[in-house]
């Protein structure tokens, strides 16, 4: 019979010394041991986290992983600070003047704070640097026409009076319809099959719903094109930079001139053979 031993004691008495050391080592890497936390709460977080930000340039770093609250470019507020401040007041270790200073600091921080995450034009939510999507001239923002007032939202499948250039070439699997990808409520966004809105700069999430293998390869740099620096900042091209989303097959190109056949290579002046 299989007896399952509940594994709820993290610091169990039967745990060997080496195991606990290994666990501590793991925690140390994650920066979550008690010493680490204390140290983190003591040092100014804006500087403490800078080295990590440098590392984050390379890879994908999701929002959940952020440990500083996003408060604009001038100040990063570490949660431990808030905690310290409140506890300090409660325990009476902070003088009222100190507390006022702290409060002022926090107010300034919130004044500079933008919306929680404000990706710049060229950066997608995952921290991946992407160029602007290749919109046709003057077509974006879509809401300049599709504002929901002058044009009523009509979700029925139909031949459109507009966007003939897209309807003509639309060739992306069978039974495709604009609102499969474009969001009816906010035309400046796309949406996933789940209805979750997606910015145009993160359209790869949309493509990845069906082409998951390509998205997986694109994330690690196998599919698609990267430019910039092989050991530093890279620019990723979006799916739509190479594949027209309405007709995604890669278009044939005219080849550059072939090499000259050796028999036709002229010797430059002074050449001998």
């Amino acid at each position: 019979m299989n007896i399952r031993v509940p594994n709820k004691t993290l610091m169990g008495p039967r745990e060997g010394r080496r195991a606990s050391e290994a666990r501590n080592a793991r925690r140390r890497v994650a920066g979550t041991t008690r010493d680490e936390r204390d140290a983190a709460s003591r040092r100014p977080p804006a500087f403490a986290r800078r080295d990590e930000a440098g590392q984050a340039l390379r890879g994908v770093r999701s929002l959940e992983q952020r440990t500083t609250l996003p408060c604009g470019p001038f100040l990063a507020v570490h949660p431990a600070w808030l905690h310290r401040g409140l506890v300090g007041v409660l325990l009476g270790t902070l003088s009222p003047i100190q507390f006022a200073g702290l409060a002022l600091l926090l107010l300034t921080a919130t004044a500079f704070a933008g919306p929680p995450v404000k990706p710049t034009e060229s950066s997608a939510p995952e921290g991946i640097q992407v160029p602007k999507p290749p919109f046709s001239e003057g077509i974006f923002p879509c809401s300049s026409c599709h504002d929901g007032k002058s044009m009523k939202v009509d979700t029925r499948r139909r031949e459109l009076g507009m966007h003939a250039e897209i309807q003509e070439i639309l060739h992306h699997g069978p039974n495709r319809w604009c609102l499969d990808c474009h969001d009816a409520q906010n035309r400046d966004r796309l949406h996933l099959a789940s209805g979750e809105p997606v910015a145009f700069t993160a359209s790869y999430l949309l493509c990845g719903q069906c082409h998951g293998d390509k998205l997986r390869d694109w994330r690690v740099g196998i599919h698609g094109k990267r430019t910039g620096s092989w050991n530093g900042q890279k620019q990723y091209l979006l799916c739509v930079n190479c594949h027209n989303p309405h007709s995604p097959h890669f278009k044939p190109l005219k080849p550059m001139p072939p090499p000259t056949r050796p028999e036709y290579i002229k010797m430059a002046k002074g050449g001998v053979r």
Partner: protein
Amino acid sequence: MTDLRPTQPPAGDPETPACGSRREFLGTAVATVAMALTGCGQVSKEEFLQHNFRELSKDELKTIIARLEHEYEEKYHKAVKVGNEPPLPGVIFGYALDLSRCIGCRRCVHACVKENNQSRDPQIQWIRVLQMDKEEGVDIQHAEQYYNPEEVPQESHFYMPVQCQQCKRPPCVKVCPVGATWKEKDGIVVVDYNWCIGCRYCMAACPYGARHFNWGEPHIDSADVNPVTHYLGNRPRPKGVVEKCTFCIQRTRKGLYPACVEICPTGSRKFGNLLDAKSEIRQVLESKRVFKFKEDLNTQPTFFYFYGV
């Protein structure tokens, strides 16, 4: 680098040297006699007495680079910078090419020519794109490099660009009788154009046809010269030496991608550090079907071909 062509009679005594020491006197005397015998009046005394790149001291290299930059400026009427960036520590370069995506558009060939100051006339190109039959697979017997249709890719064909494979056991280095070519620490096989004697043994030894010889005086319009160069890479070459792909040594040692990677419209070309587990090249090697070209020759290329689909 001697030129055996008896063009002009030796231009008399080169500038009379300041014979400070016995060593200098002998050096100059030998150089004068050698130049008189071989008839190469175009090579300066300094160039004639120059050592192999790997034996140069820092000061010697500095003066040589200054001399080269001066020569290039006179020739092309613009400032040409000759760098000598050393290999980056902890880096071995690797390259992978996606055969399932390459469409044979030859953008890489021409970007390479431009970046690496290859002679336009007589024409030298470091990358050769082979058009192959899908039915035959990778088979050199059925390869065509002069294809020129209206549009690529063509039906039932695939394309295989071939350039220097930067072998781990390079046969070209093994056969060089003078040690003018060698493998750098970061895996790039380089040529010292000032030490090469033009015997072309390396060309015979290379199974990939990746080495090219300057049969004539290379010609590049001064407007087309790329002024950012490397001593072992894309600096303008003299006549009578062998040259080859260096993974754009002048770019990659500064952290940039090679020119062919930057230009490829299909993103078929992948480049990175083989020692970095997160690099694109390692991801390719770990998760895709990869092969080495002419693997049976045991040259152990650091250039890989793979199928991305």
